[in-house]
């Protein structure tokens, strides 16, 4: 009896480990967009130049009307955007979670800076 419990526990542990690996190891692609967008009826203009960093990755420049790709692992992430607002350097920091089943997300950086709803949305490549 004891043995059955220990064995089931070990099996369960292995299963949990597999799930843990699956969730924490799932890779996602995040597209970072610096284009003028209209979100929820409001227009957010592209920023001239900004620097963006996802999690503890390196800081990358995104020029106006540019789009870059960033690979991330897991669900919980932090994005830090540094930009110049009328000559003053400002930093916006947001945390976000993404779904495991969704391979790609699109983040609109102007939307993020402007504090718009829906600055992040799932993105699917047309098959």
């Amino acid at each position, binding site marked *: 009896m004891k043995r059955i419990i220990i064995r089931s526990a070990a099996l369960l542990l*292995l299963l949990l*480990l*597999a799930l*843990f*690996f*699956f969730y*924490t*190891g*799932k*890779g*996602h692609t995040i597209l970072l967009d610096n284009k003028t967008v209209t979100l929820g009826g409001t227009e957010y203009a592209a920023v001239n130049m900004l620097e963006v960093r996802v999690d503890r990755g390196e800081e990358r420049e995104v020029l106006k009307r540019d789009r870059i790709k960033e*690979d991330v*692992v897991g669900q919980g992430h932090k994005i830090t955007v540094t930009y110049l607002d009328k000559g003053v350097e400002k930093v916006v920091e947001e945390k976000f979670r993404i779904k495991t089943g969704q*391979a790609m997300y699109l983040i609109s950086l102007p939307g993020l800076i402007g504090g718009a709803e829906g600055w992040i949305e799932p993105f699917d490549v047309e*098959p």
Partner: protein
Amino acid sequence: MKKPDRKSVIFFLESNAVPILFLIIISIGVPYSGFSVDYLVQEIIIRLSRNSFLVLSLLVPIMAGMGLNFGMVLGAMAGQIGLIFVTNWNIVGLQGIGLAMILSIPLSILLGWMSGKILNMAKGREMVTGFILAFFMNGVYQLVVLYGMGSIIPIGNPSMVLSRGYGIRNTVNLINIRQTLDSLIPLKIGNIQIPVATFMVIALVCLFIVWFRKTKLGQDMRAIGQDMHVAESAGINVERTRIIAIIISTVLAGFGMILYLQNIGTLNTYNSHEQVGMFSIAALLVGGASVNKGKISHAFLGVTLFHLMFVISPMAGKNLIGQAQLGEYFRVFVSYGVISIALVLYAYRKLKEKERAGTALAEAQEEK
């Protein structure tokens, strides 16, 4: 020190003929290849980290008297299927390796159990049966991977699927997990990179094998390896123990394949597993193991000698006779050759031992 007499020297040479032959070939080849010592040492370390685990997986069935397990190809298939799923799901890094291993376990157990059953029906002819079984299972593997995946088994990653819509492409890029284990704990001595984490995993297997030999199950396997009938009459369940031996080997081979491929970084969907079986067995034999005797040291020595030969043979070939293809030629020729030689030597040695016993008998007569 006592001067070794001529007979024991000859006996030593005879029982280590294969490793000595390789040592000679390599010591001739190294100067001709023109490689630096640093380069060669680096290569040896890479090959050791890449292949040792696979070769070590062969030791358990040898202990149980089942010869060299050509069925390890089945484990390699299980490992590859684990990796295909992990790549499809885009699981990155160590988690990817871990998940691929966990996925390979049930598959390996199933395949190992099956081949164990079949090998039990072919006692004494395990090696050739395993060899043919691997061929057969290769067909099943191709059926699943080439036709089943993308049609019945959903594969969401379009870059892995053939353009016709189902079936896995010839090569799968394992960029997500590529060398993540190797570079987990970086260590550099001089110009030489050492994949510490991988070696730690290999050390773990060695410890497992050493420990396993001390268990009841290990002892039973050794008993069966020597004489099945005696073991049976002592009440050991021979068939079940043999199946367990093959399952252990298959599961380890699955893990070994994953470690091997994380180092290489690309999966040749339809070839990787085939080569692996042949080269691992050849490497173990080169290290001095035989059909009924295999030690951990044989595995390491074998990987070193066998792969060192491959590293130097293209350049040595080019410098000697202007043919670089010699390396690839050698690879296949030598591995099949080594296996044949080892099997012939095994039979020859058995005969010799009989003769030796007879001669000892005759000598005892003369002394009287």
